[in-house]
């Protein structure tokens, strides 16, 4: 690159006139072909990268924390993106057909709750908080967890259940919604994340 411009040296004080190019026509032709080839391969890889990818790691299984990954995933699928949600630890309960219908909101440790923690810790408070939230969700026309899971699967989101957690929790592969990917681990998640445009831990 730096040799493109003739340099001015202190000795002669002016630029050397451009010397005649000494390229062999065959060599020039070969170079041109190589440039075309490289340009084509750049265009190809641009095309392959056209589809956006998003990986979400879902680690939380409370009622409120189940929503963000599912909403983002189904919306991203509507954009035509390639989406993987890798569910691990409590996040696995979101994919558990039975447990997903009974996810609870924690009344404790949430400063936005209308009751102090000391009251929120009383028996039955989580159930009450969950019921209140569920009612709100119904009234607002917000989809249920189950609807969002079905929708995500229908639109091509890859919902993955961490195999290690399945075993840790003594779950069975049949406990999950049809279409959930099982038998995957951290390496599978990382493999998708490394090429993803967006990676989120929820």
């Amino acid at each position, binding site marked *: 690159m730096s040799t493109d411009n003739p340099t001015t040296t202190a000795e002669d004080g002016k630029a050397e006139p451009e010397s005649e190019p000494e390229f062999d026509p065959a060599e020039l032709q070969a170079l041109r072909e190589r440039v075309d080839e490289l340009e084509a391969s750049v265009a190809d890889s641009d095309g392959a990268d056209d589809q956006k990818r998003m990986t979400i790691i879902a680690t939380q299984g409370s009622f409120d924390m189940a929503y963000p990954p599912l*909403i983002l995933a*189904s*919306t991203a*699928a*509507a*954009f*035509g993106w390639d989406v993987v949600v890798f569910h691990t630890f409590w996040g696995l309960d979101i994919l558990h057909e039975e447990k997903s219908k009974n996810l609870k909101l924690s009344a404790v440790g949430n400063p936005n709750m209308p009751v102090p923690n000391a009251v929120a810790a009383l028996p039955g408070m989580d159930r009450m908080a969950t019921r209140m939230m569920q009612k709100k969700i119904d009234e*607002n*026309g*917000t*989809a249920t967890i189950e609807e*969002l899971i079905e*929708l995500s699967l229908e*639109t091509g989101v890859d919902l993955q259940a961490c195999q290690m957690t399945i075993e840790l929790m003594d779950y069975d592969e049949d406990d999950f919604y049809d279409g959930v990917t099982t038998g995957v681990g951290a390496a599978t998640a990382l493999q998708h994340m490394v090429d993803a445009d967006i990676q989120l831990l929820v």
Partner: protein
Amino acid sequence: MSSEYDTTETLDVKGQSCPMPIVKTKQAIDGLEAGDVLEVVATDSGSMSDIQGWAAGTDGVELLEQVEGDDLYTHYVKKTA
């Protein structure tokens, strides 16, 4: 206020909130042919911004118009490819 497009299909997502208007719009568009226009009727005020964002980020669709009425948000989306 009323829009005169040769609407191929109307999608009613009244009463539904994020992400349903977007996801259902995408599904409805998938079932249409190039050149068709989908009318989406929503009550979710967030659908104004969301449909715009979705249409801008999605190939093969064009947002023709958005009409804001009394608690009703109507979107006209054309399938271009």
